[in-house]
């Protein structure tokens, strides 16, 4: 069974997904960061494939993309780093990236490699649903990859239903009109939107992302969905980390506020 399906079967609430950019802060940090997230109780690991022009990302993630590229990160190198990761962690892994580096790698080669190293799903923010259905769904399915769509407060009910119909992993709820890391705090208006989507009783689980940074915001949004995604705030932790492993441990435990034993 796909690790994403298994996760949502075993756990229905307070799922914590952590995003980081591959190759940041250092080129060889990918696997150590993943191991630290898994050990600290992160439920999903989302790895960003760095791109020169990340249009859905705010300054924090832009900067991590830029530095990762300067460090020499490429998709080929990332796959080499991920070889053997399944001997070390069992946490679901999702790759997040803009289309261009992936289509240059070759979509089928990319999907095949994802399956080979044990990637479970994809988040491709500049791949709209229609293009996914027309061009890529078949190959994603062939290699057992879950595709996650985004929805935002502007997404109409009809469109959310359609996205739900074509999703089979989880839906990524963008918490506000924003790029990543742009706003802090959760407003009543946002809670209304979370409630509205919750009441739609969708088939797929939902994770809320953009603007989640700490225990308070995590707890707050967790009441409206199956969990949340933290990206920019985690990148900030990495950028100031003195000792990567223990700083990641401290941060994730602070967000979750309990000791989670992931060894089982």
């Amino acid at each position: 069974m796909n690790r994403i399906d298994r996760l949502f079967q075993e756990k229905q609430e307070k799922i914590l997904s952590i995003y980081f950019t591959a190759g940041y802060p250092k080129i060889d940090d990918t696997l150590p960061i993943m191991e630290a997230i898994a050990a600290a109780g992160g439920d999903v690991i989302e790895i960003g494939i760095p791109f020169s022009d990340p249009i859905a990302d705010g300054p924090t993630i832009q900067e991590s993309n830029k530095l990762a590229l300067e460090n020499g990160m490429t998709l080929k190198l990332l796959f080499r780093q991920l070889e053997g990761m399944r001997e070390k962690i069992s946490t679901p892994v999702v790759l997040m990236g803009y289309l261009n580096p992936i289509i240059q790698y070759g979509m089928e080669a990319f999907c095949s490699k994802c399956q080979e190293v044990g990637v479970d799903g994809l988040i491709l923010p500049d791949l709209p649903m229609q293009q996914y259905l027309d061009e890529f769904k078949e190959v994603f399915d062939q290699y057992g990859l879950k595709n996650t769509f985004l929805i935002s407060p502007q997404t109409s009910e009809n469109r959310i239903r359609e996205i739900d119909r074509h999703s089979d992993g989880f839906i990524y709820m963008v918490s506000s009109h924003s790029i990543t890391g742009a706003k802090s705090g959760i407003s009543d208006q946002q809670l209304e939107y979370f409630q509205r989507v919750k009441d739609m009783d969708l088939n797929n689980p939902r994770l809320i992302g953009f603007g989640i940074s700490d225990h308070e915001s995590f707890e707050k949004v967790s009441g409206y969905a199956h969990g949340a995604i933290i990206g920019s705030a985690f990148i900030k932790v990495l950028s100031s980390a003195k000792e990567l492993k223990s700083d990641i441990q401290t941060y994730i435990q602070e967000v979750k506020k309990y000791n989670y034993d992931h060894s089982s």
Partner: protein
Amino acid sequence: MIGIDDKGFYGKFGGAYIPEMLHPNIEELKQNYVAIIEDKAFQSQFDNLLTDYVGRPTPLYLASRLSEKYKAKIYLKREDLCHTGAHKVNNTIGQILLAQKLGKKRIIAETGAGQHGVATATVCALMGMDCTIYMGEVDIARQRPNVERMKILGAKVIPASSGSKTLKDATNEAMRQWINDPVDTHYIIGSVVGPDPYPEMVAKFQSVISKEIKIQLKEKEGRENPDMVIACVGGGSNAAGAFYHYYNEPDVRLIAVEAAGLGIHSGKSAATTALGKMGILHGSKTLLMQTEDGQVVEPHSISAGLDYPGIGPIHAHLFDIGRAEFVGVEDKHAMEAGIELSKLEGIIPAIESAHALYALNQIEYKPDDIIVINLSGRGDKDLETYIKWGKY
């Protein structure tokens, strides 16, 4: 027939590869723009502004001394005489009227050299709309007069400080801003780039160029079709406008001129069809200058308006099917051609347009050929570059 299909593609190129957050905006445009711009009241408002405000139709001028030198009959389509100094305003007039019909309150735009920024700030002043222009930090430093023009016109100019700090990054910033404030904002893209329906919409607004050429050439030569039309291509909006009514006239050669910078293989150029391959940037699939790993590379051209790593999907298609001939003109040759036109005809062209002029030296034609060159802009903004160049 050459044109856009119902999925928003020109052959293999185009589409709308955008984050879901922009889906409602793009969908709103797609569903409404054709009906709005084909509406009679809209068209008469658009035409009136083009006549009384922009100064259209622009002349189709038989450049006798240039013709004599190059041994052909060369006409210049004088887009340089448009209000604000370039063809860019044809599109901004159209889009601001459209934004008003869609009930938008704010306008955002990207700019490289500042021509599109000025054209946008101008129409925002005209319509009393709030205007924010995103411009790369590097371009702000090298295009100071246009920055001040935008400010005098009442626009806010926001520096784009990410990436290479030029046009591509200004476009990224404008898109991010649109994601952050999607409901009341219209994004006026300045070229035939971006997600569907922008490339076709901008081309339609610019198509007035070839519409006029047909009428004017008929009057002067008794025929609507020249033997060839030459235009420079950065993103490609002036070329799209000059080619539009000739796409499906196979007897008209279409010559698209790209910036070859310091030489196509110098590592310092913007010759996308020579160096690029299929990629996705700013919402469309097109030819793109990029590394083997799919990172977009920073182009170079002496003219900021051609300094873009891609071309509009329509041009990628024209290249792909061989309908247009693509020529790369180097910085130094564009400068020579700009100075030559100044001396021969008393017209100082924008350095972008000077690329199109130099192409006469790089293509073959017959002595009695009728050639139309789209003179997309005037050289006032480039005075600093001409002065630095010095050889005049």
